[in-house]
């Protein structure tokens, strides 16, 4: 529940505060999501694609 605010400054402090929290969260989540996304990628050998491509 949002407390009452007397000044825009207070409101901003509150909302920006939560924004920072969310930023932290999303930064953490994005790592997880990255691994989920690339979880099943085949070998990480950078030249694999190149070779394959060269054939």
């Amino acid at each position, binding site marked *: 529940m949002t407390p009452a605010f007397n000044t825009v400054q207070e409101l901003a402090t509150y909302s920006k505060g939560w924004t920072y929290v969310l930023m932290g969260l999303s930064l953490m989540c994005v790592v997880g999501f990255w691994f989920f996304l690339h979880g099943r990628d085949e070998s990480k050998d950078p030249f694999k694609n*190149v070779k394959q491509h060269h054939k």
Partner: protein
Amino acid sequence: MNRRTFLGLMGAAGVTLGTGSVSHAASAADVKGLPDSGAVLFDATRCIGCRKCEEACNTVNELPKPQAKFDDLKVLETPRRTHADVFTVVNKYQPAGAKAPVFRKIQCNHCLEPACASACFVQAFKKNETGAVSYDASLCVGCRYCMIACSFGIPAYEYNEALTPRVRKCTFCEPRLKEGKLPGCVEACPKEALVFGKRSEIIRIARQRIMDNPDKYLDHIYGEHEMGGTAWMTISGVPFKELGMREDLGVEPAGSYTSGALSAVPVVVGMWPVLLGGIYAVSKRKDRIAEEEKQKAVTDAIARASADAEAKLSEELTKAEVANKRRIEVEVKKALEAAAQSQTSGEEE
């Protein structure tokens, strides 16, 4: 607030916005506005809802006559808005607690910093010294973005004009103002619920009325600051919300809401080519390196193989000294074959 979140936006673009906002602020500071431009005060406590102003507006602007005559006050029972052929309307409101109905005149408020002007992509709208926000149909493309932008919902459009539709709204009777006449509606008002004057004067008068009758008026001049200030202002004895006027407009001129986004544009032009060029260079380089590494791997392999062959050959030669010629020839042949073999296999790996 907006400026602040805009910071966030720029952060997203990964750029410091010094340019954008600072220059915006500086230039804005030099602008004095038009304190002496024409303005009108509408006093809701004086309006009796006689529709004389509507009638005058209709005549002065030579608009088509409506079916219902202007002295027919039943029209007031349903709330109305401005239209292509109606530049001003008076609406009737029954505020909670008030014993008598209260009336409010609606027309273009002629903002000091008009949203329509800021939104128009051919500058068809202009705020003039007279106070009027004028419209030039000879430029209008008819995109109707002005109608989207106006937070008072004033501009109307000739939807049934096939080829030459215009945006229509109150002109502040600018031609009359230039002749030194009053706007049609102001002249027609029997109660001086509408008073015309320099904006600075008008504000003074409004304040005076409020001070003289503190319990008759709310202590607020609607339009003094709303949307950055308007030329048409309203004072009232009942909350403006009760008169269908939005109290959540804020004091920022409409243009300030888009200025942030606009100042982000040059940033894109400046930085994107750099970023993209960089990425391009990097990816190119990666390809090249990959290419080289491949070549190297191959050549190495070949070199290694031939080296082995040499070694074997010489060793066999020394042995051969003690053996007789034919056997030597045989051995040599063998060695050469072996070398040949190992070479090919080298290439393969």
